[in-house]
Protein backbone atom coordinates (compact mmCIF):
# COMPACT_ATOMS: atom_id res chain seq x y z
CA UNK A 1 0.00 0.00 0.00
CA UNK A 2 1.44 3.38 -0.92
CA UNK A 3 2.57 5.42 2.10
CA UNK A 4 0.21 8.41 1.59
CA UNK A 5 -2.83 6.17 1.67
CA UNK A 6 -1.54 4.14 4.59
CA UNK A 7 -0.89 7.28 6.60
CA UNK A 8 -4.44 8.58 6.09
CA UNK A 9 -5.87 5.36 7.48
CA UNK A 10 -3.71 5.24 10.63
CA UNK A 11 -6.28 6.67 13.09
CA UNK A 12 -8.88 4.02 12.27
CA UNK A 13 -6.42 1.15 11.91
CA UNK A 14 -4.23 1.84 14.96
CA UNK A 15 -6.74 3.31 17.40
CA UNK A 16 -10.06 2.01 16.06
CA UNK A 17 -11.32 5.57 15.67
CA UNK A 18 -14.91 5.62 14.47
CA UNK A 19 -17.62 8.24 14.04
CA UNK A 20 -20.84 8.51 16.00
CA UNK A 21 -23.68 10.38 14.30
CA UNK A 22 -24.98 13.10 16.61
CA UNK A 23 -28.39 12.78 15.00
CA UNK A 24 -29.13 9.05 15.26
CA UNK A 25 -26.24 7.62 17.35
CA UNK A 26 -25.20 5.24 14.58
CA UNK A 27 -21.50 4.40 14.85
CA UNK A 28 -19.68 4.00 11.55
CA UNK A 29 -16.22 2.44 11.35
CA UNK A 30 -14.20 4.11 10.04
CA UNK A 31 -15.90 7.48 10.51
CA UNK A 32 -17.76 8.79 7.48
CA UNK A 33 -18.58 12.32 6.41
CA UNK A 34 -22.24 11.43 5.97
CA UNK A 35 -24.06 9.10 8.37
CA UNK A 36 -25.01 5.94 6.43
CA UNK A 37 -28.15 5.64 8.50
CA UNK A 38 -29.71 9.14 8.58
CA UNK A 39 -27.38 11.21 6.34
CA UNK A 40 -26.53 13.43 9.28
CA UNK A 41 -23.33 15.39 8.88
CA UNK A 42 -22.52 16.09 12.51
CA UNK A 43 -20.16 13.30 13.44
CA UNK A 44 -18.40 12.87 16.76
CA UNK A 45 -15.20 10.82 16.91
CA UNK A 46 -15.23 7.83 19.24
CA UNK A 47 -12.79 4.99 19.87
CA UNK A 48 -14.29 1.53 19.53
CA UNK A 49 -14.04 -0.79 22.51
CA UNK A 50 -11.49 -3.39 21.43
CA UNK A 51 -13.81 -6.36 21.77
CA UNK A 52 -16.90 -7.81 20.15
CA UNK A 53 -18.88 -10.78 18.93
CA UNK A 54 -18.50 -12.77 15.71
CA UNK A 55 -21.48 -12.16 13.39
CA UNK A 56 -20.33 -14.56 10.68
CA UNK A 57 -17.04 -16.19 9.76
CA UNK A 58 -15.05 -18.34 7.36
CA UNK A 59 -11.67 -20.02 7.09
CA UNK A 60 -9.68 -18.93 4.06
CA UNK A 61 -7.86 -21.88 2.48
CA UNK A 62 -7.00 -20.21 -0.82
CA UNK A 63 -5.54 -16.82 0.12
CA UNK A 64 -4.34 -13.83 -1.87
CA UNK A 65 -0.59 -13.98 -2.58
CA UNK A 66 0.27 -11.60 0.27
CA UNK A 67 -1.29 -13.97 2.81
CA UNK A 68 -0.01 -17.25 1.35
CA UNK A 69 2.08 -18.24 4.35
CA UNK A 70 -0.74 -17.59 6.81
CA UNK A 71 -3.38 -19.87 5.28
CA UNK A 72 -5.54 -21.42 6.47
CA UNK A 73 -6.72 -18.49 8.57
CA UNK A 74 -10.08 -17.52 10.05
CA UNK A 75 -11.84 -14.29 9.13
CA UNK A 76 -14.93 -12.85 10.70
CA UNK A 77 -17.25 -9.90 10.79
CA UNK A 78 -17.04 -8.69 14.38
CA UNK A 79 -19.58 -6.39 16.00
CA UNK A 80 -18.26 -4.15 18.80
CA UNK A 81 -20.39 -3.02 21.76
CA UNK A 82 -20.92 0.28 19.90
CA UNK A 83 -22.67 -1.62 17.10
CA UNK A 84 -19.87 -1.01 14.59
CA UNK A 85 -18.93 -3.99 12.44
CA UNK A 86 -15.51 -4.74 11.10
CA UNK A 87 -13.90 -7.38 8.95
CA UNK A 88 -10.93 -8.95 10.66
CA UNK A 89 -8.79 -12.04 10.93
CA UNK A 90 -9.26 -14.16 14.03
CA UNK A 91 -5.95 -15.55 15.26
CA UNK A 92 -4.29 -17.39 18.15
CA UNK A 93 -6.84 -20.22 17.98
CA UNK A 94 -7.87 -23.13 15.78
CA UNK A 95 -9.46 -21.44 12.74
CA UNK A 96 -12.32 -23.97 12.68
CA UNK A 97 -13.42 -22.89 16.17
CA UNK A 98 -14.26 -19.37 14.99
CA UNK A 99 -18.04 -19.43 14.65
CA UNK A 100 -20.94 -16.96 14.91
CA UNK A 101 -21.54 -15.84 18.49
CA UNK A 102 -17.90 -16.20 19.60
CA UNK A 103 -16.62 -13.46 21.94
CA UNK A 104 -13.37 -11.87 20.82
CA UNK A 105 -10.97 -9.10 21.78
CA UNK A 106 -9.17 -6.94 19.25
CA UNK A 107 -5.37 -6.82 19.38
CA UNK A 108 -2.85 -4.72 17.49
CA UNK A 109 -1.09 -6.85 14.89
CA UNK A 110 0.93 -6.73 11.71
CA UNK A 111 -1.62 -7.18 8.93
CA UNK A 112 0.50 -7.29 5.79
CA UNK A 113 3.91 -6.54 4.37
CA UNK A 114 4.51 -4.73 1.13
CA UNK A 115 6.85 -7.40 -0.24
CA UNK A 116 10.38 -7.66 1.11
CA UNK A 117 11.26 -4.00 0.93
CA UNK A 118 8.01 -2.07 1.33
CA UNK A 119 6.25 -0.70 4.36
CA UNK A 120 4.74 -2.79 7.11
CA UNK A 121 1.00 -2.40 7.50
CA UNK A 122 -0.55 -2.71 10.95
CA UNK A 123 -4.08 -2.85 12.30
CA UNK A 124 -6.25 -4.98 14.53
CA UNK A 125 -7.06 -8.68 14.56
CA UNK A 126 -9.44 -10.54 16.79
CA UNK A 127 -8.42 -13.21 19.28
CA UNK A 128 -10.79 -15.34 21.35
CA UNK A 129 -11.59 -14.04 24.84
CA UNK A 130 -9.39 -16.38 26.84
Amino acid sequence: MPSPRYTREIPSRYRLEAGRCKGCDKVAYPARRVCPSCRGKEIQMVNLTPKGKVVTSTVIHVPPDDFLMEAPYAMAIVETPEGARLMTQVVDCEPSTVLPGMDVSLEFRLIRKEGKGGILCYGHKAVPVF
Partner: protein
Amino acid sequence: MAGLVGYGAYVPRKRIRTEEIARQWGKNPETIKRGLLLQEKSVPGFDEDTITISVAAGRAALTRAGIDPQKVGALYIGSESHPYAVKPSGTVTAEALGIGPEVHIADFEFACKAGTEAMFVALGLVEAGRVEYAMGIGADTSQGAPDDALEFSASAGGAAFIFGADDLIAEVIEAYSYTSDTPDFWRREGEFYPRHGGRFTGEPAYFKHVLAASRGILEKTGLKAEDFAYAVFHMPNGKFPMSAGKQLGFKIEQLETGWVVPTMGNTYSGSSPTGLAAILDVAKPNDLILITSFGSGAGSDSFVLKATKRLPKVQGLAPTVRSMLDGPRHYVTYGEYAKFREKMIVNE
Protein backbone atom coordinates in the same frame (compact mmCIF):
# COMPACT_ATOMS: atom_id res chain seq x y z
CA MET B 1 11.14 11.03 43.81
CA ALA B 2 10.55 9.50 40.40
CA GLY B 3 9.41 5.98 39.83
CA LEU B 4 6.96 3.75 38.07
CA VAL B 5 3.32 4.72 37.58
CA GLY B 6 2.41 1.79 35.36
CA TYR B 7 3.76 -1.36 33.77
CA GLY B 8 2.56 -4.03 31.38
CA ALA B 9 3.85 -7.07 29.56
CA TYR B 10 3.00 -9.24 26.60
CA VAL B 11 4.02 -12.78 25.67
CA PRO B 12 2.83 -14.34 22.38
CA ARG B 13 0.64 -17.42 22.73
CA LYS B 14 2.59 -19.76 20.49
CA ARG B 15 5.20 -22.03 22.08
CA ILE B 16 7.74 -24.57 21.00
CA ARG B 17 9.08 -27.23 23.34
CA THR B 18 12.77 -27.90 23.87
CA GLU B 19 12.13 -31.51 22.80
CA GLU B 20 10.79 -30.39 19.44
CA ILE B 21 13.87 -28.30 18.64
CA ALA B 22 16.26 -30.96 19.95
CA ARG B 23 14.56 -33.64 17.85
CA GLN B 24 15.11 -31.57 14.73
CA TRP B 25 18.88 -31.52 15.21
CA GLY B 26 19.37 -34.95 16.74
CA LYS B 27 20.20 -33.56 20.16
CA ASN B 28 19.24 -35.01 23.50
CA PRO B 29 16.50 -32.80 24.96
CA GLU B 30 17.21 -33.92 28.52
CA THR B 31 20.77 -32.62 28.29
CA ILE B 32 19.50 -29.24 27.09
CA LYS B 33 16.76 -29.06 29.69
CA ARG B 34 19.24 -29.92 32.43
CA GLY B 35 22.07 -27.80 31.10
CA LEU B 36 20.15 -24.66 30.16
CA LEU B 37 17.04 -25.15 32.33
CA LEU B 38 14.75 -24.43 29.38
CA GLN B 39 11.41 -26.25 28.99
CA GLU B 40 9.83 -24.29 26.16
CA LYS B 41 9.88 -20.83 24.62
CA SER B 42 7.42 -18.36 23.16
CA VAL B 43 7.21 -18.00 19.38
CA PRO B 44 5.83 -14.93 17.60
CA GLY B 45 3.16 -15.43 14.93
CA PHE B 46 3.54 -13.96 11.45
CA ASP B 47 1.66 -10.95 12.73
CA GLU B 48 3.72 -10.27 15.84
CA ASP B 49 6.89 -8.22 16.00
CA THR B 50 8.62 -5.78 18.33
CA ILE B 51 6.02 -3.13 17.45
CA THR B 52 2.93 -5.23 18.17
CA ILE B 53 4.47 -6.56 21.39
CA SER B 54 5.31 -2.97 22.41
CA VAL B 55 1.73 -1.85 21.73
CA ALA B 56 0.25 -4.72 23.74
CA ALA B 57 2.61 -4.11 26.67
CA GLY B 58 2.17 -0.34 26.36
CA ARG B 59 -1.63 -0.60 26.45
CA ALA B 60 -1.44 -2.70 29.61
CA ALA B 61 0.95 -0.16 31.17
CA LEU B 62 -1.36 2.74 30.33
CA THR B 63 -4.33 0.84 31.77
CA ARG B 64 -2.48 0.24 35.03
CA ALA B 65 -1.24 3.84 35.16
CA GLY B 66 -4.67 5.27 34.39
CA ILE B 67 -3.10 8.35 32.81
CA ASP B 68 -3.91 10.33 29.70
CA PRO B 69 -1.58 9.00 26.97
CA GLN B 70 -1.19 12.57 25.74
CA LYS B 71 0.81 13.34 28.87
CA VAL B 72 3.50 10.83 27.95
CA GLY B 73 6.32 13.11 26.76
CA ALA B 74 8.87 10.46 25.80
CA LEU B 75 8.69 6.94 24.42
CA TYR B 76 11.72 4.71 23.98
CA ILE B 77 11.77 1.16 22.69
CA GLY B 78 14.78 -1.05 23.14
CA SER B 79 15.05 -4.06 20.85
CA GLU B 80 17.46 -5.91 18.62
CA SER B 81 14.64 -6.91 16.28
CA HIS B 82 13.15 -3.56 15.30
CA PRO B 83 11.08 -4.45 12.20
CA TYR B 84 12.59 -1.59 10.21
CA ALA B 85 16.33 -1.00 9.88
CA VAL B 86 15.46 2.64 9.23
CA LYS B 87 12.18 4.03 10.62
CA PRO B 88 11.36 3.91 14.29
CA SER B 89 9.28 1.27 16.04
CA GLY B 90 8.37 4.04 18.44
CA THR B 91 6.31 6.08 15.98
CA VAL B 92 3.95 3.21 15.19
CA THR B 93 3.71 2.32 18.86
CA ALA B 94 3.01 5.90 19.95
CA GLU B 95 0.25 6.36 17.36
CA ALA B 96 -1.38 3.10 18.41
CA LEU B 97 -1.17 4.07 22.08
CA GLY B 98 -2.58 7.55 21.45
CA ILE B 99 0.70 9.16 22.51
CA GLY B 100 1.94 12.32 20.79
CA PRO B 101 2.51 14.11 18.55
CA GLU B 102 4.15 16.20 21.31
CA VAL B 103 6.48 13.40 22.31
CA HIS B 104 10.17 12.55 22.07
CA ILE B 105 10.76 9.15 20.51
CA ALA B 106 13.79 6.97 19.90
CA ASP B 107 14.55 3.34 19.23
CA PHE B 108 17.41 1.88 21.21
CA GLU B 109 19.71 -1.02 20.49
CA PHE B 110 22.22 -2.52 22.88
CA ALA B 111 21.78 -6.25 22.35
CA CYS B 112 19.71 -7.60 25.25
CA LYS B 113 20.16 -4.46 27.35
CA ALA B 114 18.21 -2.15 25.05
CA GLY B 115 15.05 -2.46 27.15
CA THR B 116 16.57 -1.26 30.41
CA GLU B 117 18.43 1.36 28.41
CA ALA B 118 15.05 2.75 27.32
CA MET B 119 13.90 2.63 30.96
CA PHE B 120 17.11 4.33 32.16
CA VAL B 121 16.65 7.28 29.80
CA ALA B 122 12.89 7.53 30.45
CA LEU B 123 13.58 7.68 34.20
CA GLY B 124 16.25 10.33 33.72
CA LEU B 125 13.93 12.62 31.76
CA VAL B 126 11.25 12.42 34.44
CA GLU B 127 13.79 13.02 37.21
CA ALA B 128 15.07 16.03 35.33
CA GLY B 129 11.56 17.43 35.07
CA ARG B 130 11.80 17.52 31.28
CA VAL B 131 8.62 15.47 30.81
CA GLU B 132 5.72 14.54 33.06
CA TYR B 133 5.63 10.90 32.05
CA ALA B 134 8.02 8.77 29.99
CA MET B 135 7.62 5.23 28.73
CA GLY B 136 10.45 2.74 28.33
CA ILE B 137 9.82 -0.56 26.56
CA GLY B 138 11.96 -3.62 26.05
CA ALA B 139 10.64 -6.02 23.41
CA ASP B 140 12.04 -8.52 20.96
CA THR B 141 11.25 -11.27 18.54
CA SER B 142 14.67 -12.73 19.11
CA GLN B 143 16.73 -14.38 16.42
CA GLY B 144 18.79 -17.48 16.89
CA ALA B 145 20.39 -19.37 14.02
CA PRO B 146 19.08 -22.86 13.30
CA ASP B 147 21.04 -25.53 15.18
CA ASP B 148 22.66 -22.88 17.38
CA ALA B 149 22.31 -23.20 21.15
CA LEU B 150 20.48 -19.85 20.95
CA GLU B 151 17.64 -21.53 19.11
CA PHE B 152 16.52 -23.16 22.35
CA SER B 153 16.18 -19.78 24.06
CA ALA B 154 15.54 -16.97 21.53
CA SER B 155 11.87 -16.07 22.07
CA ALA B 156 9.36 -13.24 21.83
CA GLY B 157 7.83 -10.89 24.37
CA GLY B 158 8.33 -7.61 26.16
CA ALA B 159 7.38 -5.23 28.88
CA ALA B 160 6.58 -1.52 29.10
CA PHE B 161 7.16 0.82 32.03
CA ILE B 162 5.79 4.30 32.54
CA PHE B 163 7.83 6.61 34.73
CA GLY B 164 6.39 9.61 36.56
CA ALA B 165 6.77 11.63 39.72
CA ASP B 166 3.38 11.21 41.45
CA ASP B 167 1.02 8.36 42.28
CA LEU B 168 3.87 5.90 42.04
CA ILE B 169 3.41 2.15 42.17
CA ALA B 170 7.14 1.73 42.79
CA GLU B 171 9.83 4.25 43.64
CA VAL B 172 13.12 4.02 41.82
CA ILE B 173 15.67 4.24 44.63
CA GLU B 174 18.69 4.11 42.39
CA ALA B 175 19.88 3.37 38.87
CA TYR B 176 23.36 2.31 37.87
CA SER B 177 25.16 1.31 34.69
CA TYR B 178 28.37 -0.62 34.00
CA THR B 179 29.80 -0.93 30.49
CA SER B 180 32.91 -2.05 28.62
CA ASP B 181 33.73 -2.98 25.04
CA THR B 182 33.41 -6.77 24.96
CA PRO B 183 32.63 -8.48 21.65
CA ASP B 184 30.83 -11.54 23.02
CA PHE B 185 27.78 -11.51 20.75
CA TRP B 186 26.97 -9.41 17.71
CA ARG B 187 25.10 -9.16 14.44
CA ARG B 188 26.58 -7.22 11.54
CA GLU B 189 24.38 -5.01 9.33
CA GLY B 190 22.58 -7.16 6.73
CA GLU B 191 23.18 -10.41 8.60
CA PHE B 192 20.07 -12.39 9.52
CA TYR B 193 21.31 -14.22 12.64
CA PRO B 194 23.56 -13.05 15.46
CA ARG B 195 26.88 -14.76 16.18
CA HIS B 196 28.53 -15.27 19.53
CA GLY B 197 31.77 -16.25 21.16
CA GLY B 198 30.51 -19.47 22.75
CA ARG B 199 31.85 -19.81 26.29
CA PHE B 200 33.32 -16.31 26.05
CA THR B 201 29.75 -15.03 26.50
CA GLY B 202 29.77 -16.36 30.07
CA GLU B 203 32.46 -15.38 32.55
CA PRO B 204 34.12 -12.40 30.76
CA ALA B 205 30.85 -11.03 29.41
CA TYR B 206 27.60 -11.89 31.25
CA PHE B 207 28.95 -12.53 34.72
CA LYS B 208 31.52 -9.75 34.68
CA HIS B 209 28.96 -7.05 33.87
CA VAL B 210 25.95 -8.40 35.75
CA LEU B 211 27.93 -8.87 38.94
CA ALA B 212 29.72 -5.52 38.63
CA ALA B 213 26.53 -3.56 38.02
CA SER B 214 24.67 -5.34 40.81
CA ARG B 215 27.53 -4.88 43.29
CA GLY B 216 27.82 -1.27 42.19
CA ILE B 217 24.19 -0.44 42.90
CA LEU B 218 24.24 -2.34 46.21
CA GLU B 219 27.24 -0.34 47.28
CA LYS B 220 25.67 2.92 46.12
CA THR B 221 22.46 2.24 48.05
CA GLY B 222 24.08 0.57 51.02
CA LEU B 223 21.70 -2.37 50.63
CA LYS B 224 22.44 -6.06 50.98
CA ALA B 225 20.97 -9.05 49.20
CA GLU B 226 18.86 -9.98 52.21
CA ASP B 227 17.16 -6.57 52.15
CA PHE B 228 15.41 -7.45 48.89
CA ALA B 229 12.15 -9.29 48.43
CA TYR B 230 12.95 -10.00 44.79
CA ALA B 231 15.79 -9.84 42.30
CA VAL B 232 15.89 -10.51 38.57
CA PHE B 233 18.89 -10.78 36.29
CA HIS B 234 19.02 -11.00 32.52
CA MET B 235 18.00 -14.51 31.47
CA PRO B 236 19.91 -15.78 28.40
CA ASN B 237 19.13 -19.27 29.72
CA GLY B 238 17.86 -20.72 32.97
CA LYS B 239 21.25 -21.22 34.54
CA PHE B 240 23.09 -17.89 34.26
CA PRO B 241 20.68 -15.70 36.25
CA MET B 242 20.39 -18.25 39.06
CA SER B 243 24.15 -18.55 39.22
CA ALA B 244 24.62 -14.76 39.22
CA GLY B 245 21.97 -14.36 41.91
CA LYS B 246 23.61 -16.94 44.15
CA GLN B 247 27.04 -15.37 43.71
CA LEU B 248 25.51 -12.10 44.91
CA GLY B 249 24.01 -13.77 47.96
CA PHE B 250 20.40 -14.06 46.81
CA LYS B 251 18.30 -17.07 47.69
CA ILE B 252 16.08 -19.00 45.32
CA GLU B 253 12.91 -17.58 46.92
CA GLN B 254 14.04 -14.08 45.93
CA LEU B 255 14.91 -15.17 42.40
CA GLU B 256 12.20 -17.55 41.23
CA THR B 257 9.38 -15.00 40.81
CA GLY B 258 11.16 -13.05 38.10
CA TRP B 259 12.83 -16.16 36.67
CA VAL B 260 10.45 -16.53 33.73
CA VAL B 261 12.96 -17.99 31.29
CA PRO B 262 12.22 -21.74 31.68
CA THR B 263 8.84 -21.42 29.97
CA MET B 264 9.20 -18.09 28.13
CA GLY B 265 12.75 -18.31 26.78
CA ASN B 266 15.04 -15.34 26.34
CA THR B 267 13.13 -12.37 25.01
CA TYR B 268 16.43 -10.49 24.63
CA SER B 269 15.62 -6.80 25.30
CA GLY B 270 12.40 -7.94 26.95
CA SER B 271 14.04 -10.53 29.21
CA SER B 272 14.81 -8.86 32.56
CA PRO B 273 12.02 -6.27 32.01
CA THR B 274 9.47 -9.08 31.68
CA GLY B 275 10.94 -10.65 34.80
CA LEU B 276 10.47 -7.32 36.58
CA ALA B 277 6.87 -7.18 35.39
CA ALA B 278 6.30 -10.68 36.80
CA ILE B 279 7.66 -9.46 40.15
CA LEU B 280 5.48 -6.32 40.11
CA ASP B 281 2.50 -8.60 39.48
CA VAL B 282 2.86 -10.02 43.01
CA ALA B 283 5.04 -7.60 45.02
CA LYS B 284 3.66 -6.00 48.18
CA PRO B 285 4.07 -2.44 49.46
CA ASN B 286 7.62 -1.66 50.65
CA ASP B 287 9.12 -4.70 48.90
CA LEU B 288 12.56 -3.90 47.53
CA ILE B 289 13.32 -5.18 44.03
CA LEU B 290 16.64 -5.42 42.19
CA ILE B 291 16.80 -5.74 38.41
CA THR B 292 20.03 -6.07 36.48
CA SER B 293 20.05 -6.45 32.73
CA PHE B 294 22.83 -7.52 30.44
CA GLY B 295 23.51 -6.53 26.87
CA SER B 296 26.27 -8.04 24.82
CA GLY B 297 28.88 -5.69 23.62
CA ALA B 298 28.69 -5.31 26.68
CA GLY B 299 27.01 -3.68 29.64
CA SER B 300 24.50 -3.95 32.45
CA ASP B 301 21.91 -1.58 33.90
CA SER B 302 20.74 -1.99 37.48
CA PHE B 303 17.74 -0.49 39.21
CA VAL B 304 16.57 -0.69 42.79
CA LEU B 305 12.83 -0.24 43.18
CA LYS B 306 10.56 -0.08 46.19
CA ALA B 307 6.89 -0.99 45.81
CA THR B 308 4.34 1.49 47.14
CA LYS B 309 0.89 1.09 48.63
CA ARG B 310 -0.58 1.81 45.21
CA LEU B 311 0.93 -1.24 43.50
CA PRO B 312 -1.63 -3.84 44.69
CA LYS B 313 -4.43 -1.62 43.35
CA VAL B 314 -3.16 -1.81 39.77
CA GLN B 315 -1.83 -5.37 39.60
CA GLY B 316 -5.18 -6.81 38.52
CA LEU B 317 -5.96 -4.20 35.89
CA ALA B 318 -4.09 -6.02 33.10
CA PRO B 319 -2.94 -9.59 32.46
CA THR B 320 -0.05 -10.80 34.62
CA VAL B 321 3.06 -12.32 33.10
CA ARG B 322 2.32 -15.68 34.75
CA SER B 323 -1.21 -15.68 33.36
CA MET B 324 0.28 -15.28 29.90
CA LEU B 325 2.98 -17.92 30.44
CA ASP B 326 0.63 -20.46 31.97
CA GLY B 327 -2.51 -19.41 30.09
CA PRO B 328 -3.77 -20.45 26.64
CA ARG B 329 -0.87 -21.66 24.54
CA HIS B 330 -0.54 -23.28 21.17
CA TYR B 331 2.42 -25.60 20.64
CA VAL B 332 3.95 -25.50 17.19
CA THR B 333 6.07 -28.08 15.38
CA TYR B 334 9.56 -27.23 14.22
CA GLY B 335 8.19 -26.98 10.68
CA GLU B 336 5.56 -24.45 11.73
CA TYR B 337 8.18 -22.64 13.78
CA ALA B 338 10.46 -22.40 10.76
CA LYS B 339 7.52 -21.06 8.76
CA PHE B 340 6.47 -18.51 11.38
CA ARG B 341 10.04 -17.30 11.82
CA GLU B 342 10.38 -17.03 8.04
CA LYS B 343 13.30 -19.40 7.93
CA MET B 344 11.94 -20.93 4.73
CA ILE B 345 12.64 -19.53 1.31
CA VAL B 346 9.44 -19.07 -0.68
CA ASN B 347 8.66 -17.43 -3.99
CA GLU B 348 7.24 -13.94 -3.74
